[in-house]
């Protein structure tokens, strides 16, 4: 009612105690003026509000823009080889910068095989750790152990690489590889000569690096399985392992697969540690002990030396392929994890 009054006079006294409502209809001017200043301020703040809103929206959209920009730059900078080699780029196995003949197959092969070795080593261990931490571990130990696995995730790639060069590789060359050659030499996968550096060393260090990711996500998925499931299986007389297998792992399997794929995504793009121990050789060999190269490691090792445009363009095209592959892998994994943890509250950190 007061709002309708068209009295424009507004003394700027802001008396907090003055009644806003129509308590005293006699003293109409004072409340009107206050409401008017209030409304005028509102009007001003609408501008500020919408500016703020647009600013925030702009920043949110910039994430979009960044991904689009990355894709665009990669395509633009690799036009040279995209046009010259086409799809043959990824099936050719000759990598000859001097004669400008580029085939990326050895690197694709190296990336896939080193990631597979890492997954084979890491997945059972990661699931084991997750089972131990969620179902068996005494409470006092749980905090410490999850902190330790978190730390494992926080160590920079280059430090893993340093450790791998000076500790892991001599260890593998001296003790592990001879045993593997003796036991599994007949498969051809572990054949001498053994330099220590090579595909297997890269796979082992990758496994150590992706373990924390897989195990922490698996733990998250396993915690999301409702307790009633566990209780129901136990009530039927199951042992603890049967409870874990039937009540927990079976319910969480999609999420576990998602976390494994996420670990795979990390392994595919991991650069420094791999570049330092894989031996950088653009060859495809059956033996895991032979030096090789991955898509990421070849970029890291050769980009700074790539002098001419075609060479550089070839390396950028490998980067583009890596970008697309990791995006697809990540989207797939996120969808899986999201499908499982959807109904539950966000992880209780």
């Amino acid at each position, binding site marked *: 009612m007061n709002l309708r009054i068209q009295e424009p006079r507004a003394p700027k006294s802001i008396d907090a105690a003055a009644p806003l409502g129509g308590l005293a209809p006699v003293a109409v001017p004072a409340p009107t003026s206050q409401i008017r200043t209030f409304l005028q301020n509102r009007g001003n703040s609408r501008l500020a509000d919408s500016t703020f809103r647009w600013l925030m929206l702009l920043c949110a959209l910039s994430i979009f823009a960044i991904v689009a920009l990355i894709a665009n730059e*990669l395509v633009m900078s690799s036009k040279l080889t995209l046009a010259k080699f086409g799809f043959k780029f990824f099936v050719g196995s000759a990598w000859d910068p001097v004669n400008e003949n580029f085939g990326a197959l050895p690197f694709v092969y190296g990336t896939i095989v080193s990631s597979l070795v890492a997954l084979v080593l890491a997945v059972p261990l990661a699931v084991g750790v997750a089972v131990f931490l969620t179902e068996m571990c005494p409470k006092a130990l749980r905090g410490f152990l999850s902190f330790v696995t978190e730390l494992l995730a926080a160590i920079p*790639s280059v430090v893993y690489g340093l450790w791998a060069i000076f500790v892991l590789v001599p260890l593998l060359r001296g003790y592990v590889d001879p045993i593997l050659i003796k036991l599994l030499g007949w498969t051809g996968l572990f054949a001498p000569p053994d330099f220590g550096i090579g595909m297997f060393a890269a796979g082992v260090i990758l496994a150590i690096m992706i373990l924390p990711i897989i195990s922490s996500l698996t733990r998250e998925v396993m915690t999301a399985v409702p307790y009633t499931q566990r209780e129901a299986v136990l009530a039927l007389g199951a042992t603890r392992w049967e409870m874990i297998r039937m009540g927990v792992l079976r319910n969480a399997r999609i999420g576990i697969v998602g976390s494994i794929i996420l670990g795979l995504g990390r392994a595919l793009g991991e650069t420094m540690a791999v570049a330092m121990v894989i031996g950088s050789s653009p060859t495809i060999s059956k033996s895991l002990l032979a030096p090789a190269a991955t898509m990421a490691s070849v970029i890291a090792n050769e980009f700074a030396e790539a002098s001419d445009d075609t060479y550089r363009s070839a390396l950028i095209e490998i980067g583009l392929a890596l970008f697309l592959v990791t995006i697809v892998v990540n989207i797939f994994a996120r969808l899986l994890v999201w499908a499982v943890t959807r109904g539950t509250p966000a992880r209780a*950190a």
Partner: protein
Amino acid sequence: MATQLNSSTLNRRWRWFTNHLATVLAVASTILVVAPLIAIFIDLVVKGTSSLNLNFFTKIPAPVGEQGGGMANAIVGSAVLLGLASLLGIPIGIAAGIYLSEYGRGSKLSNVVRFTADVLNGVPSIVMGVAVYALVVVPAKGYSAFAGGVALGIMMIPTVARTTEEMLLMVPHSIREAALGLGVPNWRSMISITLKTAMPGVITGCMLAFARVAGETAPLIFTAFGNQFWSTALNQPVAALPLQIYVYALSPYDEWHRLAWAGSLVLIVLIVVSVALVRFVTTRGVLKGAS
């Protein structure tokens, strides 16, 4: 009847056996996972402290063959790069987080943005380096500290945005309503009320992102490039701690290997302290007290 009984005891034995086998395997895998971490830390401390001295923090690298020298320029260079990255990544990340939590809650656009942030988070750092090389280094015709800062900054955005969003979502609605009820404009209430309430958590997210990019090497190889001398100019190549570790680790000189171990120790201490601090803040209920 007798065979049935027999098979049932066998069955029970088998179940007892698998149950205990599973326990043993789980414990064994945990030990196997913790072992390399402990090994890495012991090696870092033993090999790092032996070559860590005052020179490490005050001198620039010595020429090949000479004793001594340090990584002072790399430490300063890393500080410059990380400062640049934070200037770029933290404001944009926090703003994107505010949008996701305060404006776009449940909307289709925000779901897509959130998903894109997760995807960006998964892009390999070497690819980020190549992209920034094409984006900044090629037009500027030279490696620069600025390019390195941009690469690291972009990598910080998704982490900061997602943690900010998560933390803002934990702020109870009644606080926002109280602010708006007092006539505080919307933007003001978001900055001084909502964001301030969630501040400990937001800082946590920023530090996590910081710790993550502090050790990144791959995006710096062909953006910041590295430098053997003092340089803090933004348009010149600059040294960085992880980059120096990489170069020294692959070098054939023992002296440089020792410096690489010392550099790794410094880097790890920096990161572990920030991660531990983050954990302390998030578990000690600072957030609970605020909300």
